């Protein structure tokens, strides 16, 4: 059973030489819950999101097999990089199709077609984020997080609207990120979990 508390930390441990593609796919499912759910939301289609992640796993595995991944700890970066490239390409194609033009921003706002397991995972993650928002000492700081991370507004625009200096903005983000990582890593499952996956 996937546990979002256990899966936050990307692999930084050594990948065993015998690692196969299935292990890379399992790696995504286990360690990249956030990436998977985010892509699913952006695409709005669980199957298409799964295709993107499978392709990312496949490419990362091929690079590993071909010796193009110089250090085993780089494989996590490859998975993210390939998946994000595929997502960008897909969004570009959607925008370019005049016959079925959908605003990619609107697409990202639509509730994704996700199954019960993913709904459960999202709920668990949302509970952690909710706690961060509750802990923030000012309404302004909560607004910063929502406008920047959710609405994806530019930092400059938010600073201008809220009369914030850039370093004030950075401090709010820094504190929130540190707290999120602390909450997500609270169960202490980090590198050892990856070792277990690869055995």
């Amino acid at each position, binding site marked *: 059973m996937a546990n*979002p*508390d256990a899966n*936050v*930390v*990307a692999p*930084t441990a050594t990948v065993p030489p015998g690692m196969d593609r299935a292990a890379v796919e399992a790696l995504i499912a286990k*360690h*990249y*819950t*956030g*990436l998977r*759910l*985010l892509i699913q*939301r952006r695409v709005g289609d669980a199957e298409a999101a799964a295709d993107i992640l499978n392709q990312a796993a496949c490419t990362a595995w091929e690079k590993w097999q071909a010796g193009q991944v110089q250090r085993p700890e*780089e494989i*996590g*970066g490859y998975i*993210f*990089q390939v998946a*994000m490239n595929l*997502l960008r390409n897909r*969004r570009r194609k959607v925008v370019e199709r005049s016959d079925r033009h959908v605003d990619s921003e609107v697409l990202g706002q639509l*509730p994704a077609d996700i199954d*019960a397991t993913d709904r*459960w995972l*999202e*709920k*668990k*993650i*949302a*509970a*952690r*984020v*909710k706690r961060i*928002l*509750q*802990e*923030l000492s000012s*309404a302004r700081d*909560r*607004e910063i*997080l929502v406008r*920047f*991370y*959710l609405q*994806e507004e*530019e*930092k400059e625009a938010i600073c201008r609207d809220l009369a914030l200096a850039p370093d004030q*903005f*950075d401090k709010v*983000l*820094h504190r*929130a*990120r540190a707290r*999120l*990582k602390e909450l997500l890593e*609270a*169960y*202490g*499952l980090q590198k050892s979990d990856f070792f277990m996956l690869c055995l």
Partner: protein
Amino acid sequence: MQTETRIPDDPGLTSRYLAGQLSTEELHAYEQHLLQNPDAVRELEATARMKVGLANLRDSGQLEKLLRAPPAIRLRWPALAAVAALVMIAIGLWRGVDAPSEMTLVATASELVDRSGRPLVPGSSYALLRTRSSSYDAVIQLPPEPQAIELRVRPETAAPAYSVALSRIHPDGSVLQIGNVSELAAQSDGFVKLYVDSSHLESGPYLFVITPAGDRTAASTTAFRVKVVASEKLR
């Protein structure tokens, strides 16, 4: 390269990367950075979760309320032995914190279910008794898998019904309520029984408060100091 040197100092870069907002130069530099720094990948995954979590809160209608809500009470945790201060904190918690929507603390074990809707496996039982020592009143060990942990609490004030709240104490001394339940009656042995979903707990100190229904004064409130530790498997 100039772009690379500023990457670690820009807390917004990961979010902009996930939003597809980086310029070509920034994108190239960031992806190189990503390949060479496993910590950056961890940062990226955490940022992805921040975005997913916020989107989920928006979809469930909780975000608007959170944006309008006053901040949670933040109290200093003076010392574990300061029982008098604990009671004051307990009263403050009752008056200041919204109840969480998740089922964390419940009166009957059958109310706790896993993601497929099945009742949680019964876990260990812990008795909370005021020890009046300088350490914790109880130590709860988290099971490897979610379980319904039974808590048996002995209030110091007799009453027909009680309300109970469980709060996490953060390292900076702030306190955040994670669950509450009311209308609990004591059993014949004087203990009040309730259950907590272990998957909602983290390692660290907690404050457990029981108060007679309708009487939230310092004299009637009993506070317990509880320590939650990770299971053997997780260490």
